[in-house]
Structure formats: structure tokens, C-alpha cells
């Protein structure tokens, strides 16, 4: 099992990061904004990536800010039992999902179902592969996209994803499969 979002990072780097995070989280919990800024800079990449892929709309900067502001407010509840990055990530997911639910109107902009994906032509004729891939993820239906991002990009397990999204584990698995198959079809173009 890979660590959430480790990607290219080694375990050693993660461990080293954990020390500094624990220190800064403690400081920030009692008002040290400089320490919080360090945490922000250290974790911005992961939070920003998560927000932008989960939401795929244009107000992601606001949501990223919301995540960190909420994290600042909730620092007192961080007990250090998990790594700060893990805690922050879960908090980010909550903020993202909470926003999605309150923005019922925006939701209708996203088409649900595989039909949406098949109706959109491939954007580029000479693809830069990763942008094409990111664009393809953005075109996934909401539910499938979120499961895909949480599972394949961020490394959560289906049990965790099911809890976070309020789904049955089986639904999480089938949504993941839909996402992967849709991406496969899109990439063939």
C-alpha cells in the first residue's frame, strides 16, 4: 500500500517532513502564524492538487484558501496521532465535499454519466501527455472523478473513500472502475 500522495517522495523524506510538521503544527496551534505559513508552503502542492482535481471548476483558489483557513481554525484538534499532512488532507477533502454540497446550482454544470465523456471531443491533436490526462480527469463525471482522485491519485482505500463520500464500498469500487474505463476510452482518441 502506498502512502497517500507520496508519488515520487521517498519514505525518508516523508519522515523528515513529519518532524518539522509536528513542531510547526504545535506552534501554529497557539497562534504562531509564521509556523502556519511554513506548513502552508510545505503542503500547498498536495492540497492544491487535490482541490483542483476534485473540483475542476474555476474557484479552486478560494477553496484552497478555505482549506487552510479551516485548518488554522481546527489546529487545536490535531493531536499528532497521524502525520500533519494526513490530517490536513482529510480536512481538505471535507472542505471540498462540503463546498460541493452547498453549491447545488453549480453542480448542474457538470454532466453526469458516461454520456458526458463520450460527447466531448479530445482537445488536443498533439497532446502533452500529462495535461491531456489532467484534462481527461477533469471531464469525468463528479462521482467517478472524486473516487478516482482519492483512490488512484491520492492513495486512499475504498473503505476510507466510502466513508468520506457517504457511499457503500461497492459503489466506490464501481465508480473507480467507471472512471478508469472512461479515461481509457478518452486516451485512445
Amino acid at each position, binding site marked *: 500500500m502506498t502512502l497517500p500522495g507520496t508519488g515520487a517522495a521517498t519514505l525518508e523524506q516523508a519522515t523528515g517532513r513529519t518532524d518539522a510538521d509536528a513542531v*510547526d503544527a504545535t506552534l501554529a496551534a497557539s497562534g504562531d502564524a509564521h509556523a502556519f505559513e511554513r506548513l502552508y508552503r510545505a503542503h500547498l502542492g498536495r492540497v492544491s492538487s487535490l482541490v483542483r482535481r476534485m473540483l475542476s471548476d474555476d474557484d479552486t483558489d478560494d477553496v484552497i484558501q478555505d482549506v487552510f483557513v479551516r485548518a488554522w481554525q481546527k489546529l487545536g484538534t490535531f493531536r499528532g496521532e497521524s502525520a500533519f499532512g494526513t490530517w490536513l488532507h482529510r480536512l481538505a477533502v471535507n472542505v471540498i465535499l462540503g463546498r460541493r454540497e452547498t453549491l447545488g446550482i453549480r453542480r448542474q454544470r457538470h454532466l453526469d454519466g458516461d454520456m458526458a465523456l463520450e460527447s466531448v471531443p479530445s482537445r488536443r491533436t498533439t497532446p502533452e501527455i500529462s495535461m491531456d490526462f489532467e484534462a481527461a480527469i477533469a471531464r469525468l463525471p463528479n462521482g467517478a472523478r472524486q473516487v*478516482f482522485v482519492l483512490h488512484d491519485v491520492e492513495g486512499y482505500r475504498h473503505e476510507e473513500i466510502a466513508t468520506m463520500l457517504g457511499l457503500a464500498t461497492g459503489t466506490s469500487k464501481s465508480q473507480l472502475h467507471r472512471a478508469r474505463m472512461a479515461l481509457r476510452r478518452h486516451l485512445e482518441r
Partner: protein
Amino acid sequence: MSDQWTDRLSEYLDDELPPDERAALETHLRHCTACGAALADLKRIVTRARGLEDRLPDRDLWPGIAARIGANSGEARAIDLGAERARRRWSFSLPQLAAAGLALMALSGGSVWLLQPHGNVPLAAHPAAPTMPVLAVGNSAASLRARAAGQSYAAAVSDLERVLQQNRGRLNSTTVQVIERNLATIDSAIAQAQRALDADSANVYLNSHLAETRQRKLELLRQAAALVSSAS
């Protein structure tokens, strides 16, 4: 397109199939090129997903966050040791000593450690009042107590230095010299640690070393002040 085999490919890839279904699928894969191709594609997708780079925002979002959490970065104060007292930013951390089971550095009882953006002041000078936040290490209840305590490292240092300054005549001159010399030793160590930290602010060792060295200064000042008050 969906059939009982392709529907299972993701679970197979993620090693989530029960053994009997797994065996059945592997048997199927041996002679189904379409499924084999699909599986290969799925693997590629998963691999690519895991390797995705971070996507950063286009602009620096920190000022907006800082404004919302009430931390005005413009107010960050910094002190230089020179005669001009130029200001520079600094930061300060403590290791998770609590997690390690060691006692935290206590200032005036309880688990309160206070920080302030103040440099090193010679015995004769009176430093400006600090405005950095109170820091507490420990659980939430202790944090709240610490905030309520509201004293700062700088205030403690300046109080003690004032006591010493006003009463140094009560102490033997040799003792005064010894104390001043050792305060200077500690101040020099603080300055070196601070400079090192400026270049590497997330360094856990440097942060804790600076904190501990500041604590040594405070303890020495306290000791000196206690001597003064008991001298007759």
C-alpha cells in the same frame, strides 16, 4: 461496454478479488486479448495517476489566508543585533518533547514557553516591548492557560535584566563580571543559532537549539536576580 470480466478488472488490478474469482479471471485473461489490453490500459492509467505532479495555484495565496486568519505579515518584527536595530523576520520552534516524554521548558510554572522577536540585549539596555504571540506546547487546556498567562519571554528577560541593572551594586563585582560574561557567552550562542536558523528556518535541530539556548539565558538571569535579591 461491460461484461462480467471487464467489470472485474479494476478489482483484480487492485488485488481485491476473492481467490476463486481471481483464479477464474486469470484463466479468462489467458485467452482474452481484449481484456488483456484493457487491463494493460488500466495499469497505465493507475501508474500515471500515481505519478501526477502537484498542481500549484497560479498566484501566491498566502496573503489572502494570512488576512483571514488575522496574521498581518506586515507586522512581523525582527531585531538585529547591531547598534542600528534593523528588523528581520525570525522563527522559532520547539521539538515535540511532550511526545518524547520529556519535560517542557517551563517559564513561570506550567507548560508555558514564550517567544518574542527579540534579540540579545546587553545588561545595561532596556529593550522595547514585544508583541509576538504566546506559545504553549502541550494539550489544548494548557494552551489556553498559556494564553491567559500572557507573559512573554522578552518581558521576562527585560524584567530580570532591569533587576540586575538596578541592583548590581549589591553583588560582588567579580560575580557581576562572571554573570555578564556568561550572559555574553549565551548571547553569542543565541546569535549564531539565529543566523543559522535564518538560512534554514525549518531545521528542527536549530529551532530547538535556539529555544534551549534562550532558556539558558533566562535561567541564568533568574539565578542572577535571585542572587541580587538575597544579597544584603
